[in-house]
């Protein structure tokens, strides 16, 4: 077990492994998404309170979950990278960030889309919405920091430090925002508690959640392959590989 671990933590072997795995996850994501969307849009019944608009939930909720989960994974890889100086961990963190930001944006976008018919407003300063917005800002900050640093060793480490500080802060932000909102209460609207969901809806949502998972993994693998190639381009094996391709 441990031997395999070390074997695959070398960029060269991981490059091959990722190449094998990525298509599987990609196809898995596509199939699951088709099934999930079919259930969401055709099988699931119209909600008697919310009408058809509620169907956004099949994208909105998985996206919101993924945006938070990916941040945790990035924090994990950053910690590993800083502690053991493993090159691959930093690459993983970099490969994940755009997907995380995408999901955070997607949850904001679909949420706003949903909010208009539900609350009559695109945006309210609800605790959950606000903390989702701040999470998105964190993603953007991390990517901006990477973009600003040319030197990749410096970029890796600086980004990892920021991700870790953010990871400590995210729960604190979440609770502070929550409390902020409840104390202010006065507001006329608040996020309605999710109506007890029909089981078919739950199924659809879970399938979509898995589709999001598979998609994230597939995209991360593809991206990490690109990063590996770019970073190891002066090594022998990449030169050989590139020659073979052309």
């Amino acid at each position, binding site marked *: 077990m441990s031997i395999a671990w070390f074997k695959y933590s070398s960029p060269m072997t991981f490059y091959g492994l990722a190449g094998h795995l990525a298509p599987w996850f990609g196809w898995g994501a596509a199939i699951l998404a088709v099934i999930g969307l079919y259930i969401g849009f055709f099988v699931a019944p119209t909600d008697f309170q919310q009408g058809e608009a509620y169907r956004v939930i099949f994208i909105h909720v998985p996206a919101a979950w993924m945006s938070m989960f990916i941040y945790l994974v990035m924090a994990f890889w950053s910690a590993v990278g800083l502690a053991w100086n493993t090159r691959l961990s930093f690459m993983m963190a970099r490969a994940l960030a755009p997907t995380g930001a995408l999901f955070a944006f997607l949850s904001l976008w679909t949420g706003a889309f949903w909010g208009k018919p539900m609350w009559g407003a695109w945006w309210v300063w609800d605790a959950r919405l606000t903390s989702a917005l701040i999470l998105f800002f964190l993603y953007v900050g991390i990517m*901006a*920091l990477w973009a*600003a640093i040319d030197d990749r060793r410096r970029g890796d480490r600086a980004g990892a430090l920021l991700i870790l500080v953010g990871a400590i802060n995210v729960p604190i932000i979440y609770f502070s925002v929550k409390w902020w909102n409840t104390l*202010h209460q006065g*507001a006329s609207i608040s996020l309605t508690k999710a109506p007890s969901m029909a089981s078919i809806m739950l199924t659809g949502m879970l399938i979509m959640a898995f589709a999001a998972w598979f998609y994230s993994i597939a995209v991360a693998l593809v991206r990490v392959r690109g990063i590996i190639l770019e970073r190891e381009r002066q090594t022998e094996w990449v030169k050989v590989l590139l020659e073979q391709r052309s």
Partner: protein
Amino acid sequence: MTAMASAYDTPSADDSFAPMRFLGTVIRRDVLLAARRRGDWLTSQFFFVMVVSMFPLGIGPEPEILRMIGPGVVWVAALLASLLSLPRLFAEDFRDGSLEQMLLSPEPTVLVTLGKALAHWCIYGIPLLIITPVLGIQFSLPAEAIGVLVLSLLIGTPILSLLGSVGAALTLGLRGGGVLLTLLILPLYVPALIFGAGAVDGALSGVGYSAHLSLLAAFLVLTLMVAPWVAAAALRVSLE
């Protein structure tokens, strides 16, 4: 001497397009330098978004209050965004010696300051206009008010860049320059702020906004005619 003169083909100085070309060069140069850092362009927008988003966190989530303060907050944030990015307008070129080289150009210095102010507007002002509607939605402003807000910023942000270039030129040399920038420039910004935010308030309350906007436009024309010259003079003084 004739032999020597032929060895150097001195570019002809009587080219009437030269000033425009030079102005374009200065603008392109700064935009290129900003584009070199991919982050820069997006970063300035997000800075603006974040400053605006901080206010509800400090003030509370009630939509009626937020709608009331929205235009003011967006305007103040635009003002701060320009203020924060301004110190770098000349400072980096000063430090690495390329500002000296620009002053040694045969073209008049006023084109340098005008060009840099316009470049600043392209980099910081335009993205801000694009992002503003989203923020208006966050503050639940009605569509018409959002339109007026964007329009007021379209006229107002060049004023901020132009006035700011004067402040940045002064800051460059003087030791207490930091204070001067804030002290001189923020009060000068006040009319822009009042007309700009006032126009949106007028749209919100139904009083009308065209008077405010025309005043803002007049202020822009005035600034455009005065600021680059003052900035050029300040620059020469600062570099002595």
